[in-house]
């Protein structure tokens, strides 16, 4: 799988099994270790069954990049992913505040921010999700739309919607 150019990772929460193989693959690729909390994609599960792979949604207006006072964040010309310059990043957390989904998080050791960089065009999370035949994450074309930004949500917010989809009226009581 070598995707040239620009693409988006579509996410289907109802297909996510919560196996966290994406966290394993992401942290191995970026850190050389199995390190769930240093993974750029993290699967939240605030209510059993409501599994939410939480990672950069690639908003059209990149509020995180806009917010960075150090110019540590940039947009990749090849993939349109957000790139972190860890030398410049001070870990101030302004990008976390700027992101509607509070998606960026700090590396547990060393003080710089972690944001999905699409693995430079070969996203490992999608690869392992496909290998396990869950297909909760898929590579799709990236037409121009504001809708991506709607996926930049806090896990609580996504969960509140998802529990209704899963459990109906009663789901509201679970979170």
């Amino acid at each position, binding site marked *: 799988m070598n995707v040239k150019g620009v693409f988006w990772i579509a996410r289907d929460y109802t297909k996510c099994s*919560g196996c966290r193989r994406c966290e394993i693959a992401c942290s191995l690729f970026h850190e050389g270790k199995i390190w769930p909390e*240093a993974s750029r994609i993290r*699967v939240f599960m605030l209510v059993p069954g409501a599994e939410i792979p939480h990672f950069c949604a690639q908003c059209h207006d990149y509020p995180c990049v806009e917010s960075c006072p150090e110019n540590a964040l940039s947009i990749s010309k090849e993939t349109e992913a957000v790139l972190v310059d860890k030398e410049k990043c001070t*870990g101030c957390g302004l990008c976390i505040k700027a992101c509607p989904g509070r998606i960026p998080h*700090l590396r547990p050791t060393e003080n710089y921010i972690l944001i999905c960089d699409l693995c430079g065009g070969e996203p490992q999370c999608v690869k392992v999700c496909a290998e396990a035949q869950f297909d909760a994450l898929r590579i799709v074309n990236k037409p121009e739309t504001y809708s991506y930004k709607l996926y930049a949500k806090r896990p609580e917010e996504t969960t509140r919607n998802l529990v209704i989809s899963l459990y109906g009226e009663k789901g509201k009581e679970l979170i």
Partner: protein
Amino acid sequence: MRGYAGKFLEIDLYTEKMKDITFDEPTLRQYIGGRGLAAKILWDRLGDRWETIDPLGPENILLILTGPLTGFFPGSKICVSGKSPQTNGIVGSTIGGEFSVEIKCAGYDGLIITGKAPKPVYILITDSRAEIKDASHLWGKDGKETLKILTKEGKEELEKRAPQHGEWKQPGILYIGPAGENRSRVAVVNAYWMHGAGYGGYGGVMGSKNLKAVVAKGTGPLPEVADLKKTLMLMNRISQENMKNTGVTRQWGTGSAGYDVGARTSSEPVRNWQEEWHDEKSFGVDKFEDRVWIKRYWTASDFGCATACLKLATPKTGPFKGAITDNPDYENQAYVGTNLGIFTPEENVYLMALMDELGFCGIQGGNVLGFAAELYQRGILTREDLGGIELKWGDAKAFAALIRKIAAREGIGNTLAEGTHRAALKIRDLKNIDVLRYAVVEKGMAIGAHGIRSRQDYPKNISYACSVQGGDHTSIAHPILTHENSELRIILHDSGVYCWFNTFDVSEELVWDIFEAVTGWKVGPEEWYEITARRILHIQRAALLIGGPDLKWDPRVHDDNPPRFYEPLPSGPYTGRTLDKAKFEKAKKEYYENVGWDENGIPKPEELKRLGLEGVAKKLKELRF
């Protein structure tokens, strides 16, 4: 040591003192982790006075242990142990969920919990520190509410400790419901809703310690392994095998068996095992799939698992609409379904959800409910005895009313909360009727939902009778010690600690390969079956036979199947089949011999000496007949 975080956290709930504990490499190589290490720790600390230790008293030790393969072998688990209030021995009870990986990432291989807290508490562990926190606001709360509050509080606490981190993921949580708080011997340690360490009765142990929950969030990586490249290759390989070989499991989980084990193998408990056959299409997997299951693939964050045998269920319409549970799996379809004469997914889900919320093990709880219903059927327990409940087969609401009484220890519930075996003893004395013949248990523990009379299922005549974990269907004695279903093999998985299901159809060689790639230890089958596993088995066996203080097992009497298994099957394609006592006795003696036990089933002194277990040999002298 590779694969290990390197330290265990010991917490005294009474003094609130905590310390880090380490074990040297030879000890870990011998006892691995999880179930094996639990046996070692319990024997070292309590062995010389085992018979005096009340499992529900402050002297018992609660162990929550990972193993070196936890997080690496696809499908991680953690092992809960201690002196079991069911068997009075040592049971390694494994449970899935996120706690296992979180605690390892927090830098601990497990928890050693001693003493009793003066008031309800929970333990919160992050990599910065562990803390005993007040749980008075959680005491009395049901499972769903407990999980919801702890998820929220856990996140808030993490936010408080490190606000700069960004969004904190929820911690891993193990907890008990009201049944555990009330020290029921059939209470479960829960993860999520239905996920439980049920065998052993450790929910009651947590309750006896005033411990409502343990909560952990780690931010570190998994520990270093001996050979990362090889480990990763093998993780992938095992997942591929799992996906190839678990077509049924992947599509339906074990949830197709609620119909199939009754209709095909005729080995499913039906109305307290009075039958083991049913052909109720109303309970078919298609009904579960079409009507109540709402997610096809769910692993419940059992780290790295590609099998995804779990389900989530909720009835969409009808009187049980709004009941929610994760699964039921086969065991709970059987014990909270057919065993109670319930044959629709909706009623099964309704009752299961309630039992989750109250904190019961579906197997142990379903067994005691079925036992009570048979006594009602026979007029031994009356409506009056049951506090006004007409406990008719198939009446989900009646069973719901009774399980609520058991959780609260109200009326007859106080007796039934002790589990089927102990309840049978009490009712026998009260009614002067031998009701033990209706108790389908092995050494104080309900037998898993796989019967042996039809001879079509995987457990055989000695499976439960000779197991060191009583009725546990996930740890059975097998005449071939190296068989994939043999207790000696299972000890490896339970000590590893990872999911047994993900070893199905995976060659043993692959398991040893990943064991070596992670730990760097070349153990292999020869050392394992001859030495390492034997050592663990014998310690468990010794503890089981010493037992006490309330009950002791005489192997000459109690290494046997429940009386019901000697009754002929009354229905189905294997009508008339039963156990042959003589064949059973012969197989039992052979097993004793193979495994190094004497003719009475006591580990032989020379066998114990060979394995360096002189202390066990000395203690067992008291037992020799």
